[in-house]
C-alpha cells in the first residue's frame, strides 16, 4: 500500500463501508461513477461511515482529478433534506504489477485496515451505474449477513458469450451455485471475506492480475462463504475496447477457470448438481443496445481453424470429440445448418480443461487454440436463437448448463485419468 494511502487510513481511523473503483485512463466516465457511488452511500447508508477509494494504474488523462472533483447535489439528486454524513473520497495510484488485481488488492488492504464491515467494487467505465447499485451490492452483506454479492444484469442475447458458453456453466457445474454473472465486475464483499482474500498467495500470479473477477467468485463459492446476487439492470460500458484481442481475453478468463479447478479439485469433485442462490433487487426490463454479429465470418474462422489447427486439436481433444468437430466442419463446408450440439461443446471444454493440467503443448498455445471452437459455439448459438426472445434464450442457456452438469462424472473420470464412458443423453 502506498505511503499516502497509509497516512489516509491513519487520519480517517475507521470506516463501516469501503467502495473501490479500480481505474486506468477512465477520465471520461469515472467522475460520474464516483458521484453515483457517493450518492448511493449517502442515500442508503447515511448512518454508516463510508470511504470511496479510487485505485489508479497511473492514468494520464486526469482520472484521479475527475474522482476528486466528483460531487452530488444532495437535495436535487437524492430528494433528501436531512443533512448527510460526509463520505471520504480518496484516490491513490496502486503499486505492483499492472492490472485490475493489484488495484483490488490496495482497495481490500484499505478496507481491512479501516475495519470495514463491507466492501464493494465497481468498474470505472460504467455508463449505467445508479446510486441504487451501491445499495444492492452492500445491503445483503450489512443486513442479510451474506459474504459475497455477485451482480446480475439484463443483457442482449448475443452479449456476454464467454460468460454464457463457458464461465457460467462451468462455475455452476463445478461449485454447485447458480451465479449468473461470475465475471460481472461489480461485487459486494464482507469484511471477513476481504480478510480471506488478502491471506491468499495468488496476488502475484496471473490469476490475480488478469482473472481477478473469476478468482473472487470462485474463492467465495469453493470455500463455502454465503453467496447471493443482486439484479442491477443493464450494464453499459464506455465504448472502448481493451488492448488485448479475443484470444488473449479467452486465454486469461478460461485459463483462470482451469487453474482454479486444480486448486479446488477436492471441492468440486464432491459436488453434484447445482442450486439457485438468493437474488435481490427488483427485476425490470430495459432497452438494450443491439449486438451486431456476422455468422458467416464466424463459421469461416472455425473452418480455417479446423484446417490449420489439426495438429494441436488432435493432441488436446479425445478421439470422439475430435470426430464430432470434424463432422461439424464437414457440415459447415457442405453448407448445412451449422449446429454444435451441447454435449459436443461440453466435451470440448472438458478436454481442454484436462489437457490444461498436463498440457501436450504450451498452455498459452493450448488456450488460444480454443478460440475458433469458441467462435463456432457462438455461431451455433446465434443461429439457434435468432428468433428467440430473452426468456427463451435464458431457457436455452439453462439447457447447456444441465448438459455440463449431466456430463460432470465424465469430467471427474477424465481428470483422474480413468477411462471415460459416455453419459447417456437426458
Amino acid at each position, binding site marked *: 500500500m502506498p505511503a499516502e494511502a497509509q497516512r489516509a487510513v491513519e487520519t480517517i481511523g475507521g470506516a463501516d463501508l469501503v467502495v473501490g473503483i479500480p481505474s486506468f485512463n477512465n477520465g471520461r466516465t469515472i467522475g460520474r461513477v464516483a458521484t453515483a457511488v457517493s450518492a448511493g452511500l449517502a442515500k442508503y447508508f447515511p448512518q454508516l461511515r463510508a470511504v470511496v477509494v479510487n485505485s489508479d494504474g497511473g492514468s494520464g488523462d486526469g482520472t484521479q482529478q475527475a474522482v476528486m472533483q466528483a460531487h452530488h447535489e444532495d437535495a436535487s439528486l437524492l430528494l433528501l433534506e436531512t443533512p448527510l454524513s460526509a463520505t471520504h473520497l480518496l484516490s491513490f495510484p496502486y503499486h505492483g504489477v499492472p492490472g485490475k488485481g493489484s488495484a483490488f488488492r490496495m482497495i481490500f488492504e484499505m478496507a481491512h485496515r479501516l475495519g470495514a464491515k463491507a466492501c464493494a467494487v465497481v468498474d470505472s467505465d460504467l455508463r449505467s451505474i445508479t446510486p441504487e447499485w451501491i445499495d444492492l451490492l452492500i445491503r445483503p452483506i450489512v443486513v442479510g449477513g451474506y459474504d459475497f454479492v455477485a451482480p446480475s444484469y439484463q443483457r*442482449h442475447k*448475443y*452479449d*456476454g*458469450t*464467454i*460468460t454464457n458458453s463457458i464461465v457460467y456453466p462451468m462455475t455452476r457445474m463445478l461449485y454447485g451455485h447458480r451465479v449468473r454473472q461470475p*465475471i460481472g465486475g461489480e461485487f459486494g464483499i464482507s469484511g471477513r471475506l476481504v480478510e480471506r482474500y488478502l491471506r491468499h498467495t495468488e496476488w502475484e500470479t496471473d490469476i490475480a492480475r488478469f482473472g481477478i473477477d473469476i478468482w473472487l467468485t470462485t474463492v467465495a463459492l469453493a470455500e463455502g462463504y454465503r453467496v447471493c446476487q443482486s439484479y442491477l439492470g443493464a450494464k453499459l*460500458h464506455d*465504448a472502448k*475496447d*481493451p488492448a*488485448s*484481442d*479475443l*484470444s488473449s*481475453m*479467452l486465454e486469461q*478468463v478460461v485459463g483462470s477457470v482451469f487453474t482454479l479447478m486444480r486448486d479446488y479439485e477436492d471441492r468440486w469433485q464432491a459436488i453434484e448438481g447445482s442450486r439457485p442462490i438468493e437474488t435481490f433487487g427488483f427485476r425490470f426490463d430495459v432497452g438494450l443496445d443491439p*449486438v*451486431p*454479429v*456476422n455468422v458467416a*465470418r464466424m463459421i469461416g*474462422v472455425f473452418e*480455417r*481453424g479446423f484446417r*490449420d*489447427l489439426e*495438429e*494441436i486439436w488432435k*493432441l488436446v481433444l479425445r478421439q470422439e470429440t475430435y470426430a464430432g468437430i470434424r463432422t461439424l466442419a464437414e457440415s459447415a463446408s457442405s453448407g448445412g445448418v451449422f449446429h454444435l450440439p451441447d454435449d459436443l461443446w461440453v466435451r470440448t471444454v472438458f478436454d481442454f480443461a484436462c489437457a490444461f493440467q*498436463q*498440457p*501436450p*503443448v*504450451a498452455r*498459452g*498455445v493450448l488456450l*488460444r*487454440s480454443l*478460440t*475458433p471452437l469458441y467462435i463456432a459455439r457462438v455461431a451455433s448459438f446465434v443461429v439457434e436463437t435468432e428468433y428467440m426472445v430473452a426468456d427463451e434464450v435464458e431457457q436455452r442457456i439453462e439447457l447447456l448448463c444441465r448438459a455440463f452438469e449431466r456430463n460432470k462424472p465424465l469430467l471427474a473420470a477424465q481428470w483422474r485419468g480413468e477411462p471415460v464412458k459416455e453419459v447417456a443423453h437426458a
Partner: protein
Amino acid sequence: MPNGFGQIFQGVLDRLHNQATTVLPGLLAAAIIVLTSFLIALAARALLYRIFKGLAIDRFLRRSGVAYIMDKQGSFRATRLVAEGAYAAILITGFLTGLSAFNSQLADHIIQGFVLLMPKLVVAALIIVGGVWASQYFGRGLLVWAVNEGLPAPRRLAAICRVMIVFISIVVAADQMDFAPRVFLAAFIILIGGFVLLSAIALGSTASAEFKRFFQGAGHEPERIAEKSLWNQL
C-alpha cells in the same frame, strides 16, 4: 632346395605365429570387453526401463513438443530416452576400451579423436535438440496466432518458422563442431538473404496492388462487416 623351402615355410609360420601372438590376445581381449559391455548395456537398459520413471522429464518432453517429434502420438517417454542413452553410452565405452586392447597407434588415434570430439558432439546434439524444441514452441505459437488473426497460409508460416529455427541450430551446431563452418554460414546467409528479398518482393507487389485499388476506387471505403466488440464477449 628342400632346406630352402623349409626355411621359407618356417619363416612364414614364425611370422604367422608372431602375428597371432601379437594380435590374437588383443582381439580376444577386445571381444571379451565388447561382449561384456554389451551384456552390461543390456542389463542396464532393462534395469532402467524397470526402475526409472522420470515423470518430470516426461512432462517437459510433452510440453516442449519433443515427445511428439520423437513419436507422433507423443508417447515417447523419458524412461526410453535414459535407458537407450545409457545402453548406447555403455556400448560405445566398451567398444573404445576394446579398441585400446590392441595397443596400436591407429586405435589410439581413433580413441583420442573420439574422446576429444565427444564434448563437442554432446553440445552440438543439445543445440539441435534445443533448436527442435524452440522450432516447435515458436512454430505452434505462430500457427495459432496466424489462425486467430486470419492471416493467409498459417501452416506454411509455421513451417517456415520451424525450418528457419532448426536451420539456425544446425548452423550453430556445425560451427561448434568445426564442421564446414563456412559452408553452413554461407548457406545460412544466402537463405536469409533470399527470404528478405522474397518478403520485399511480396510486400512490394501487395503494396502496388493496394495503390492501384486506392487510386481506382478512391473514395469508396470497403464495406465494414458488423462485429460485436470485445466487451460483448465477457
